[in-house]
């Protein structure tokens, strides 16, 4: 993306990725949701989501950072800060 995306745009983009990879309806992907506990996403799917998010938002998400992204909101904040 040429311009830095807004948090809303990041959330929408993440929701599309989560829907594609894990089949969670986009409207269920909201900031307070935990990837593991609320959205039932396993560690393998998290890797796929991270790779797709890197491509979509032009960020790097190293494994030690990925481990800290517990909620959708955590991911939005990380991408917003690092994009």
């Amino acid at each position: 993306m040429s311009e830095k995306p807004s948090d809303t745009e990041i959330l929408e983009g993440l929701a599309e990725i989560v829907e594609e990879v894990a089949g969670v309806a986009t409207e269920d992907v909201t900031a307070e949701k935990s990837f593991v506990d609320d959205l039932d996403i396993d560690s393998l799917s998290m890797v796929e989501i991270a790779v797709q998010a890197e491509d979509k938002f032009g960020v790097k998400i190293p494994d030690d950072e990925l481990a800290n992204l517990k909620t959708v909101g955590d991911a939005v904040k990380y991408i917003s800060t690092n994009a």
Partner: protein
Amino acid sequence: MSNVDVVITGLGATTPLGGDVTTTWEALLAGKNGIRVNDKEWVERYDLPAKLAAPLLVDPTDVLPRVQARRLDRCEQIAIIAAREAWADAGFELPRDEEAPVDPERLGVVIGTGIGGPVTLLDQHELLQRDGLRKVSPLTVPMLMPNGPAAHVGIELRARAGVHTPASACASGAEALATAYQMIQNGRADVVVAGGAEACIHPITVAGFAQSRTLSTRNDEPERASRPFDTDRDGFVLGEGAGVVILETAEHAAARGARVYGRLSGYGMTSDAFHITGNHPEGVGQIKAITNAVRMAGLSPTDVTHVNAHATSTVVGDIGEAAAIRKALGDHVVLTAPKSALGHLVGGAGAVESIITLLSIYYGVIPATRNLENIDPRVGLDVVVGEPRKVELTAAINDSFGFGGHNVALAFTAA
């Protein structure tokens, strides 16, 4: 003789003739053909001499939810589809929350495959080479591993008594049923979900089989290409498919009032120790497998009146099997060769053909062998041709043999 009475209470399959057991069985009785011209562009790109295949009639990605399908190799997809059908056919609900219809500690899974997920392996290798590490799926290993189909079925149906994967090439599906039978006889399980699956139609497998000169090249006549026991046979047609059955102790089945298709009463499993692909000239391993199955079932050779033959339509294999059957059982048995319609489902073959054998016993009808116009005089046995044959069966054998010299015979008897 075995001490536990083992019955079959559920059947599931997806094959080149149909997306389920009923469609497959009815197509087989109607004499339909599952073999097609392989229209993939790579057939011409590599100038493959064998231009035929027996693809699934119903694509598994049209059956499974999208997200589940993308996490599974095609071989895993079809094992799950066949297992769900068999499970429901046996009258079980899927496990949910705390409720499981079969005690998980007493439920096993045995699903064999010849090769597992080579298409995933090759696709992911291509991604690695082209786009680098990041594009390799984290699901690569669970998708390509040959125990993947069995493991996924075990998770879905909640089986904790053991999940196993026999790999004996084209005998894998039959070996799975024999292994399941052992699990029950050994007291490890009351119910076992058993079968085989294969989905490996890919340029490298077709090229490899073609180079071993085992595939039919009757490219202009797909419907006539697979012709077991016929004088003009020239090899098998590679197919894809899965079959799964529910094996259960008769006691467990009776306690819940389950419908019983028939019994698995014995098996024989031997090995040739001769050649990696070739048949033993005297067929001693095949004869012994059949003989052992009959003996374990407490039968005499004259009790067995039908053999669902392995008969792949190769020049050497079909004749060797016919000779082994004559020696093991006598010349009274009636044969059929379902690969004439289904093609060769490799690791799925023994399981799908076991289902056909069981249905022949259950309904008292043997499907005809397609394309048997001039029987090879060396067969020396009655092979059903033309119309299906109505005949009451009390005991039948299903033969399955695999590259490596694996010989499996299963003895099924009427309920």
